[in-house]
């Protein structure tokens, strides 16, 4: 079939600029809302996701996984004979069959001295969460593979389970990994990470007001639209297995697969083709990645597994899932003097890639947000429970930290009868204080202007008039609420040395390569690939801004370890700040070399070359010395040329001789085919950069929500959602806005709709979208996204990151708005998601308490 042509296995991530009209005006310059080069193939139905791949000329065998229906159970007996005998079944294996050749999965952020529970791709003896794999089937057809799962006979001894991180820490809780308990850890607390600063006890003694609250940051399903998928094919000529994987970090996956399977890394090629959303959940190594690759090696055939949505709910990492006990101290004027928090962060039944760092560092060490809070007392407990693993999900720790501090700041304001705007202003780190090392000493913020950003949000939302409107409506029994949240976070993960000390094994660099073909077209290679963000479009803008050539002359290669030699991946909103900075540097070096080539051809020094829009010209106002030197060089060359012609009958290449200008394309050709090269230069225009950032960058912003709560139904209507982000300089405002919108939708989902709940025996209550409320178009308000621009000096582009802002700052803005709306009724707390029944119940509880206290005062029982 002709359609097979488009399935050919090669890198599918080269992005030619088919979607954009060519021409100098379309040069993808920094700051323009360039349309995306990624769009056309999706719009035409030519997207190529992992499940679409047909490789090595054969239909892949289908791998399916038998998953534990119990949250905690010992496998008493497992019998695969019946399944094995079914027609079309190629292989059936259990955990015991794999222990010899398949090692345990590793994590990437292993706290110093932290033990790592053994995580096998298939569990051999004990299943520790619903969905954990206990056997696999490989069959010729997806339907047969599903049938065979039902033919596996298995007996379980069901054990007690615990899924809540706080309960898991209590005495008497069932223990997830008894083999570690008492030996290297106590109970289910895998690690305790304390942070202390100043003198919290003294701050507490001196405080005029102390507010305490227990917060629940619920367990969420990241929910990329493309379910996880892996396809591995074996090439018997090269003895290489090519793995197509829906992943955010193909290079890291290659390294980890090589370790787990004990094969040389050069026998693996990992390709992340089109990836249908990641949001942090496709960043880490999964058992299925290991199993499919192992089966391709074993069977020497193409093998694939594509998750069903239910499997995705059960086996893909979840996010958030913190219980936080918080105490905040302030003086009467609203100055916050101290913060105490105990965090129980769920890691799940095993440790995923970055799992431990998310509660401990990404939350516990940046709790003070945008404020100067000198006294800190934070204890983070990394908890093992009987859930699927919990790890990075859009924001990864910063949403939990921001929700904590931003809802507590509002509580302080309410308690003191102050405007939450004023409490924020009073405690902001002032613009003059940057660079600013926060109390936890974990981070040094680069730049910020929080008051200016807040002011812009207040202006857009019309804060004063909203307050007046709130007052008017309250008199009519309608409950309008205005909620603010201000955030900062760290993006562009950097300073690899420091990270390594905390057990993070990625390093902090990113790899970028810019090369020029002899015809003058440019190829951009990046190790930080795209899952929908529009990286290729943005990278081209960065490179074309330097090279001043049309975007149509560039293509981007990404997501393929066979074509891009190195890379770390896409996470932590790092791609532009680190990957972009790498490409920017590569492009600058490349242009410098091209200038030397051009200068050589034109007979001048590189200093006398002016470059603009694809043309290298000799500077008009050259010094007399330079002019003389040029005449001399030209004369010498002419002479040499004549000698060559006369004696040998050959003609040296002298493209630029006697000319004042030379084009990009000519220089590209000369770079490969000159007879002689300028001093010390190698042929070619090909620059590779491992960019290693000095430190993180810290975007910030203010979100404002206006809600109306229907106190009869408990319905929350989000009428306005204003997002004012500051991500430094903006490469592409259209794409930046898209990031804010998407993050805000996920943030609204957390605030109002989404939660992954478990039964007492540890079974997820929802294992697909029929039971898990996913934000739909109807749920979303019109998002008003704006920016302030405060550049950073930590990278040459002045960029920070924008991918996570919406999911970080939207939840506290909405929750603060709802609590603001309901404050006249005495409602002081609600846990997310703010479902109508919870809102109604909080209203009726508050009313009851209020009437009780009124009764009590009326009867004189309470001393005033």
């Amino acid at each position, binding site marked *: 079939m002709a359609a097979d042509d488009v399935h050919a296995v090669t890198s599918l991530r080269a992005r030619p600029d088919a979607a954009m009209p060519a021409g100098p005006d379309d040069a993808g310059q920094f700051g323009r809302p360039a349309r995306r080069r990624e769009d056309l193939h999706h719009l035409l*139905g030519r997207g190529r996701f992992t499940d679409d791949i047909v490789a090595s000329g054969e239909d892949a065998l289908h791998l399916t996984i038998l998953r534990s229906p119990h949250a905690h159970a010992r496998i008493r007996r497992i019998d695969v004979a019946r399944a094995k005998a079914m027609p079309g079944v190629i292989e059936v294996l259990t955990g015991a069959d794999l222990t010899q050749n398949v090692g345990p999965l590793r994590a990437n952020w292993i706290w110093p001295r932290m033990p790592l529970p053994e995580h096998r791709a298939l569990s051999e003896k004990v299943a520790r969460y619903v969905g954990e794999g206990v056997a696999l089937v490989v069959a010729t057809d997806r339907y047969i593979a599903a049938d065979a799962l039902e033919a596996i006979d298995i007996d379980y001894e069901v054990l007690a389970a615990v899924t809540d991180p706080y309960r898991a820490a209590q005495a008497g809780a069932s223990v997830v990994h008894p083999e570690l308990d008492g030996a290297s850890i106590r109970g289910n607390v895998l690690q305790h990470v304390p942070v202390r600063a100043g003198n919290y006890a003294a701050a507490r003694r001196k405080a005029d007001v102390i507010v305490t609250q227990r917060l629940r940051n619920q367990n969420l399903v990241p929910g*990329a639209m493309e379910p996880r998928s892996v396809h591995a094919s074996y090439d018997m000529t090269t003895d290489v297995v090519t793995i197509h994987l829906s992943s955010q970090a193909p290079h890291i996956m290659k390294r980890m697969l090589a370790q787990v399977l004990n094969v040389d890394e050069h026998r693996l090629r990992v390709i992340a083709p089109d990836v249908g959303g990641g949001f942090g959940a496709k960043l880490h190594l999964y058992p299925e990645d290991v199993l499919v690759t192992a089966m391709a090696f074993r069977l020497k055939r193409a093998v694939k597994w594509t998750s069903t949505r239910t499997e995705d709910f059960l086996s893909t990492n979840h996010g958030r899932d913190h219980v936080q006990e918080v105490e905040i101290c302030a003086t009467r004027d609203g100055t916050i003097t101290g913060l105490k928090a105990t965090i129980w962060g769920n890691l799940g039944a095993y440790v995923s890639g970055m799992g431990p760092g998310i509660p401990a560092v990404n939350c516990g060490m940046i709790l003070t947000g945008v404020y100067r809070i000198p006294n800190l007392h934070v204890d983070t407990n990394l908890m093992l429970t009987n859930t699927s693993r919990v790890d990075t999900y859009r924001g990864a720790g910063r949403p939990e930290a921001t929700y904590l501090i931003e809802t507590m700041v509002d509580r302080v304001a309410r308690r003191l009868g102050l405007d939450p705007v004023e409490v924020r202003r009073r405690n902001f780190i002032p613009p003059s204080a940057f660079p600013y090392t926060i109390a936890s000493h974990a981070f040094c913020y680069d730049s910020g202007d929080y008051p200016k950003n807040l002011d812009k949000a207040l202006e857009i939302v019309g804060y004063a008039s909203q307050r007046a409107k709130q007052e008017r409506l309250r008199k009519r029994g309608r409950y309008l609420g205005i909620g603010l949240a201000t955030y900062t976070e760290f993006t562009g993960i950097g300073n690899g040395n420091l990270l390594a000390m905390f057990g993070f094994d990625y390093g902090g660099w990113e790899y970028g390569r810019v090369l020029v073909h002899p015809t003058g077209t440019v190829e951009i290679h990046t190790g930080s690939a795209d899952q929908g963000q529009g990286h290729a479009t943005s990278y081209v803008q960065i490179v074309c801004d330097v090279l001043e050539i049309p975007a149509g002359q560039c293509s981007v290669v990404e997501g393929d370890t066979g074509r891009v030699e190195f890379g770390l991946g896409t996470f932590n909103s790092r791609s532009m700040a680190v990957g972009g900075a790498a490409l920017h540097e590569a492009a600058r070096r490349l242009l410098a070399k091209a200038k030397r080539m051009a200068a050589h051809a034109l007979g001048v020094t590189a200093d006398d070359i002016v470059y603009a829009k694809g043309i290298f010209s000799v500077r008009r106002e050259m010094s007399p010395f330079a002019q003389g030197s040029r005449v001399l060089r030209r004369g010498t060359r002419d002479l040499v040329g004549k000698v060559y012609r006369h004696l040998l009958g050959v003609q040296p290449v002298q493209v630029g001789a006697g000319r004042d200008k030379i084009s990009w394309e000519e220089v590209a050709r000369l770079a490969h085919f000159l007879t002689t090269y300028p001093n010390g230069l190698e042929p070619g225009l090909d620059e590779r950069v491992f960019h290693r950032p000095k430190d993180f960058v810290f975007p910030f912003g203010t979100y404002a929500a206006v809600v109306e709560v229907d106190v009869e139904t408990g319905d929350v209507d989000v009428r306005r959602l204003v997002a004012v982000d500051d991500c430094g300089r903006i490469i592409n405002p259209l794409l930046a806005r898209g990031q804010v919108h998407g993050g805000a939708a996920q943030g609204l989902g957390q605030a109002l709709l989404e939660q992954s709940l478990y039964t007492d025996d540890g079974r997820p209550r929802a294992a697909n979208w029929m039971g898990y409320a996913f934000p739909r178009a109807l749920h979303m308000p019109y998002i008003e996204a704006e920016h302030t621009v405060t550049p950073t000096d930590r990278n040459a582009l002045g960029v920070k990151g924008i991918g996570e802002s919406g999911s970080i700052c939207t939840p506290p803005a909405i929750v603060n708005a709802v609590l603001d709306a309901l404050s006249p009724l005495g409602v002081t707390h609600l846990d997310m998601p703010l479902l109508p029944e919870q809102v109604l119940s909080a209203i009726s509880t508050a009313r009851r308490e209020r009437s009780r206290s009124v009764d009590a005062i009326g009867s004189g029982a309470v001393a005033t």
Partner: protein
Amino acid sequence: MSEHAITVVVNGVRHQGRVPSRKLLVHYLRDDLRLTSVHVGCDSTQCGACTVHVDGHAVKSCTVLAVQADGSTLGTVEGVATDGVLHPLQQAFQDCHALQCGFCTPGMIMSSLDLLERYPDPSDAQVRAWLKGNFCRCTGYQHIIEAIRSVGHGSGSVPNEHAGTREGSAQARVCHGC
């Protein structure tokens, strides 16, 4: 497993084949006809990534058996552009940055084409209601709605859903990127 002969016309091309009775239409389109724009997002008729046209109407192909489509005329996004020229809705999706990862996009396009067939000039509320069966995790839907409305026929007759916001009705129907 019994097999059935089916005949369908997909994107104007007639296909005859035999399918097991339990084979889903989405698997027939993806595996047998290699029309891989038809995506499986949820297998439970929630997300709409598998939306195709069956006799002109948007249908989720993950919950239709291939045999049920026998005799039908089917359309997928592969057949929407003509002679390499994007349909105005496809062009609007690009202009308005209405797609990010692209996984929901084919289903979104097929669903929205049906909407525009029924309501040539849909209001913001109509589009949002219509898309209740099409999930997107990347865009927050806003640019998708702008794209769909930007190809609506009428002008200025749209109710002002964003009264009081900075993006008043005049801008609300215009794609930001345009």
